[in-house]
């Protein structure tokens, strides 16, 4: 422990993007330029997945009419997703999409919260691949539901041709609608989640490492308590961000599904 602190003190360096790259554990499988192997990020994904399963298993193992502690925690979480995400966005269709929305919300939350778990302090969502996969799931879902509801040509018309505009404007509107609804949506969904956790990791690293760096300086040491206090505040902020990003991802997915399935006015 003392040796580790001394090592950090000896070579302070500002955090860089290299902090997000982890080495392989054991052998790797190379396909072209892609290399598949087990590393710390994958391990965190599995750990988050196991805690996600455990949360629901222990919560709903023996469901009773008067819920116990774990059961009421799990149930209030599901009720939160149902009342704040599914019903306002999807109305009568909400029950069909509850499994998807609750899974997205809780899975993203459990993956995010590793950002502030002591000793880990790294979220798998700060690598773009994991948010991208979830954004692709959301993209496929809302497009498939739209095609099912309106038929293929009907859905294309529903997406690309907003009703009630003068005919001349469609030259401008159709490309804009295509770009915003089909191309930009999955990118913003994934980049929002990813960049939040990259930025959060940098903030925490800057303030905690900055505290240590100032302590080893001369008169700068008087500023170290302020840096440390800010770091503690940012840990609380990151817990808030973990919940907020899970909520925003789920509610935007619900809103995109609702928009794709909406009736023509």
């Amino acid at each position: 422990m003392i040796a580790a602190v001394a090592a950090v003190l000896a070579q302070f360096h500002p955090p860089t993007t290299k902090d997000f790259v982890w080495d392989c554990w054991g052998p790797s499988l190379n396909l072209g330029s892609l290399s598949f192997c087990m590393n710390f990020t994958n391990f965190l994904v599995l750990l988050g997945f196991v805690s996600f399963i455990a949360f629901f298993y222990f919560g709903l193992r023996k469901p009773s009419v008067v819920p116990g502690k774990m059961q009421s925690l799990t149930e209030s979480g599901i009720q939160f997703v149902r009342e704040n995400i599914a019903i306002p966005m999807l109305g009568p269709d909400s029950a069909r999409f509850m499994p998807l929305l609750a899974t997205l919300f809780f899975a993203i939350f459990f993956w995010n919260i590793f950002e502030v778990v002591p000793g880990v302090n790294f979220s798998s969502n700060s690598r773009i691949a994991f948010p991208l996969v979830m954004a692709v799931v959301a993209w496929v879902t809302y497009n498939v539901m739209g095609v099912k509801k309106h038929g293929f040509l009907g859905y294309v018309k529903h997406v690309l041709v907003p009703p009630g505009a003068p005919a001349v404007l469609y030259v401008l509107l159709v490309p804009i609608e295509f770009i915003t609804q089909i191309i930009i949506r999955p990118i913003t969904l994934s980049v929002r989640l990813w960049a939040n956790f990259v930025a959060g990791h940098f903030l925490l690293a800057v303030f905690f490492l900055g505290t240590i760096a100032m302590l080893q300086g001369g008169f700068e040491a008087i500023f170290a308590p302020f840096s440390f206090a800010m770091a503690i505040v940012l840990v609380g902020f990151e817990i808030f961000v973990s919940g907020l990003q899970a909520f925003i991802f789920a509610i935007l997915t619900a809103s995109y599904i609702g928009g794709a399935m909406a009736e023509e006015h």
Partner: protein
Amino acid sequence: MLALLAQLTGDLEGLATIGRGLVIGLAAIGPGIGLGVLIGKSVEAMARQPEYAGQVRATMFIGIGLIEALALFGIAFSFII
């Protein structure tokens, strides 16, 4: 302009670092104003109509998500520079 600066300083790496800082700072201006307007108006709406606070809050979070993405694009592009 950039070529001139590079000739003067002979240091493209340093210019790229300045560029990264500028991208993050400039990308935060617009979303900052937007978030201020959005959240301020939402609080006003919740104070006027407390019975619709839940709906206003849900819509506000969607708006926050959409606006915030712009600032985060700045952070993402600053890594690419």
